[in-house]
């Protein structure tokens, strides 16, 4: 129930997946919104502080999720074609990679001047690399491009799941909603 099996996902993996879905869409929307706010908007600073704090929490969830994935069996792909299953596997790894770099690049923008990232006043993440001048610019470019790339990949990911559900009529989508399928 909690852990994955060879054929289906456990509750933990399912919850972690959907938490990431919420976080990714929420952060994308918040990101688009906050960069349009002007200096005199009341949430000008608050939106960015919130985005950064949630980003740190998402990074923690990401680490837990990736760790859990390593500790659990990976349910086999449900396509009858080996190539499709292999493609799906690499697509999933690609999603992990893009999310990881997205998280790191965001952190590198905010910490380029040595300032820590405060997480809702609970704790803060100190800066590590502080190549001021170029770091926030490069990390900023990467962050923006990857955010859009991730959205495109998420769209393909969701369409593939729907395709399995509607056309192939297999459990690909259902097993990400119900544990132990």
């Amino acid at each position, binding site marked *: 129930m909690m852990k994955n099996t060879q054929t289906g996902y456990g509750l933990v993996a399912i919850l972690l997946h959907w938490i990431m879905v919420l976080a990714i869409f929420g952060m994308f929307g918040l990101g688009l919104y906050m960069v349009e706010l002007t*200096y005199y908007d009341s949430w000008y600073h608050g939106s960015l502080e919130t985005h950064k704090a949630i980003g740190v929490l998402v990074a923690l969830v990401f680490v837990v999720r990736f760790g859990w994935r390593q500790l659990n069996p990976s349910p086999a792909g449900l396509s009858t074609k080996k190539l499709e299953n292999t493609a799906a596997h690499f697509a999933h790894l690609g999603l992990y990679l893009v999310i990881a770099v997205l998280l790191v690049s965001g952190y590198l923008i905010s910490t380029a001047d040595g*300032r820590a990232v405060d997480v809702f006043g609970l704790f803060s993440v100190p800066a590590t690399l502080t190549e*001021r*001048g170029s770091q*926030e*610019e490069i990390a*900023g470019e990467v962050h923006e491009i990857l955010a859009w790339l991730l959205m495109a990949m998420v769209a393909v990911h969701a369409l593939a799941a729907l395709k399995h559900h509607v056309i192939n009529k297999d459990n690909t989508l259902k097993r990400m909603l119900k544990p132990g399928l």
Partner: protein
Amino acid sequence: MKKLLIALSVSAAAMTATVANAADYVIDTKGAHASINFKVKHLGYSWLTGRFNSFEGDFEWDKAKPADSEIEVTIDVASIDSNHAERDKHLRSKDFLYVDEYPTATFKSTGYKATGEGKGELTGEFTLRGVTKTLTFPVSQLGEGKDPWGGYRTGFTGTTQIMLGDFNMDGYLGNVPVELELNVEGIRK
């Protein structure tokens, strides 16, 4: 023939000396004895200060002929540093300096009027974000003389004010004034 050559070289040396009389100084950005600073009021409540870390330039100065003074400075605008990475990133964007499109700012003097001992009014063309404006502002010499390492130096300071709107940067904060301060120490070439 030999005499003629000597005469020629002597007169050539004399000519060179005349040309170089208004001494050429290179601004000591290498040793960081120069700075371009700015300050702008934050909400009208306090001063926000910053600087451009990377620039270069040279000037001509002869205390006997101050009216012949000239200065030229080129600023790498992307080197703006207000001690806050996120703000600097924003300042480099299209909202403000638009460094992708306008990577350098320049100041080229067009005139210098002495107004007293080591004091003067400097006029020049300031180009920033693709807009060129004529600025006139007071400058003063702090000192001049030999340095301990075999060179000869002099230094000036001057402050002027620009409006963000004059350089198409008022879309975000509004048309607020920004003070620019130039501190230069030149090493005689």
